[in-house]
């Protein structure tokens, strides 16, 4: 038999692990403009002739100059700001933003990769590894936003609907009770679910941004984003399950739970895609559904327990003389 302490050990350890990583993120020295190993964020920095700078460098602002006959032993990553290399870089050069200029005397022993930002190379620049220039994330995003042909859009929408319906069928077949509990929370307590979901999303954005800013917590930020995505998808499946039940009830039909969940999820996702085409209203409705779904998943802890408000019975006029839920 699983006792209460055992059930709680795993989440406790997980929370402590995440907390430890977060605390690590704020333990850096407080020198202005320099963070962790070498993060350049502002001002003008020069590696002079015959000087050697050891270690990786990330440029997120300001200016960095590697002079002729100077050496940078380590990889150089440019996120923003300006880098001018006339000397030797014993490592890779990656340009994700800002500008990087290689003069005729520059030598890069590793690979040069540019995906966003501006990379210029004067004749005579020596790159021992490969040179790759790809469009940046912003360009890729911009391309993805370009209007597709209606048939292509419909195909993508149908694919989304089919994938979500398949996931709903799978979830309802493998673990029907958790999905039912989550669906019950979303339908019986939509306001509470929505409020909790809104609060989670309000906190998640700065949390992820802070983690990304620390650089070495980027993997944790990825985990957080994946977790949020999983919560959102599971919440939509649960909402779809509730919708499927209602549709079938209206139609007077009886289907198995997995099929009902698949039907409801397909209708929900398709409806959201259609409503999303309407400006403002589409965004509001989609946001409301998403935050309610997220909140319901968290209220029931992925459906592991049913949600009941702690103060149920407060207003019933009874006077039991004690033994009320402490609520803590």
């Amino acid at each position: 038999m699983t006792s209460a302490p055992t059930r709680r050990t795993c989440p406790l350890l997980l929370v402590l692990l995440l907390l430890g990583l977060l605390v690590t993120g704020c333990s850096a020295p407080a020198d202005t403009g320099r963070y962790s190993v070498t993060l350049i964020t502002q001002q003008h920095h020069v590696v002079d002739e015959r000087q050697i700078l050891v270690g990786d460098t990330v440029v997120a602002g300001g200016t960095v100059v590697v002079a002729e006959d100077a050496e940078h032993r380590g990889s150089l990553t440019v996120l923003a700001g300006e880098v001018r290399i006339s000397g030797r870089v014993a490592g890779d050069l990656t340009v994700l933003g800002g500008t990087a200029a290689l003069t005729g005397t520059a030598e890069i022993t590793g690979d040069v990769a540019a995906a966003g930002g501006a990379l210029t190379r004067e004749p005579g620049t020596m790159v021992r590894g490969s040179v790759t220039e790809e469009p940046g994330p912003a360009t890729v995003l911009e391309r993805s936003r370009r209007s597709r042909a209606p048939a292509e859009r419909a195909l993508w929408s149908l694919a989304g609907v089919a994938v979500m319906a398949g996931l709903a069928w799978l979830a309802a077949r493998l673990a029907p009770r958790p999905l039912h509990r989550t669906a019950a929370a979303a339908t019986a307590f939509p306001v509470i679910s929505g409020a909790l979901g809104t609060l989670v999303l309000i906190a998640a954005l700065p949390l992820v941004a802070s983690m990304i800013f620390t650089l070495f917590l980027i993997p944790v930020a990825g985990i957080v984003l994946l977790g949020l995505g999983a919560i959102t998808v599971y919440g939509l499946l649960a909402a779809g399950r509730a919708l499927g039940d209602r549709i079938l009830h209206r139609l007077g039909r009886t289907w198995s739970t997995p099929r009902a969940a698949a039907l409801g999820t397909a209708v929900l996702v398709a409806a959201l895609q259609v409503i999303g085409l309407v400006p403002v209203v589409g965004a509001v409705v989609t946001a409301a559904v998403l935050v309610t779904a997220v909140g319901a998943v968290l209220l029931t802890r992925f459906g592991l327990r049913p949600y009941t408000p702690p103060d149920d019975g407060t207003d019933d006029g009874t006077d039991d003389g004690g033994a009320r839920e402490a609520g803590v």
Partner: protein
Amino acid sequence: MVAIRSAGDRAGDGAPMRSRVPGGGWVPWFGVGLFVAAASAGYFYNLTFVQLGLVDLGTRVIGLPEERIARSMALLAGLTLLVAMGTGLVMHHRRWSEVFELKLRLLAVVVVLQTALTAVAPQLRSEAGLLVWIVVASIGLGLGVPSLFGLTCDLVPTRHRGAVAAVVTSAAFLPAAVFSSDWRIEQFAAQLLWLMVPGAVGLVVLAFAPWTVTARLAEQHHLPRYGTGRFVRHRARSRGWPGRAFTLALVLMFGVYFIDSLGFLRIVDTPVYIGSAWHSSDPATLWAIGATHVLAAVLAGILYPALGQRVLLGWIFGLFALVQLNYVLHALTTPELPAPLGMPLLYAVAVSIYTVLNFALWADFSTPATIARNAALGVGVSGWLATFLSTALSIGWAAAELPFAAHLRAVAAISLLLFSVTVLLFVLPDRRRAEEEEPA
């Protein structure tokens, strides 16, 4: 005049008279409106006149150095704490906690006193005058704590305390953010006197003249839906110490106020952060902060009855840690750039949530017999003691010339520590619940 009777004169201990009070009509709504008006006006007064106006009075008008102002503010917080706790304990032992008329009259006297002090404050020109003002104001504020918060059990139904607290928080923070960007004592006094003079007159008339409505409001706490808070577990021992959960809430709420005060004291002194946020000249920024306060208060009002208090406190500590880490990261990496608006907005979310908790929590640990003591302890220790200690610590850190980033990093570390404590308290098994789950 309505005669003030002690609770024991009515029906004896532990024998509430439910049948005497009709439940419907406009009177309950009037009661809620009265509480919202008094609480939001009082909090608005504290947020603007006391926290910001007195600093302006001391530095700009009287010309005192910042350290002396900080000492005066610490004196105000310490004295208010003592008066609030003393008043709460006296009301508890004399069984005045259940007497609605007494609490209302005390509140009316406090509002009249504070109105007079507000009118006088801009005329002060010496440090001695400021100190006398602070002593008198501390007495008023201290008397106000148990009387105002003690009215919760008479005026606000238990089930709706979260929602009412959300309205109070919104009504205090929205105008404080939007209409009080000029932090001069004269401006604050002019604004507040328009509000306080009619309020004081109305409250005195309501409290000291015989009215049917006050007589009906005075009986409301006997109704089952009023009076006893949702966290009260043993009404038979209702006059004793409210229990371990109350102590824990007291410590955690003290932590919330402490880290908020300690962090904000430094942010408010840093022009790059305050100028682009609470003290901005851009109305859009001020409205964004005000609207965020309202949104967060609404969320907290919904979640207060729906979640356990440890979960909510965990949220608050987590949000405070996050916002202070954001300030630290900004100070370390791009101090020359203006701070993103998201930072003060996140701060507003955290502040609104704990303010909602503050207005509902102490009443929910109380019965009418204990609310004056519990509210005085709760608000006194969590609010005023935290302010006193954080101000004192801030003076010490300023004397040690602690850099901004180091200051806020320390605050973030305390926030994370308290967040860990609340998470542990939440995740670790509840002994009582575990016992219930064990097979017989």
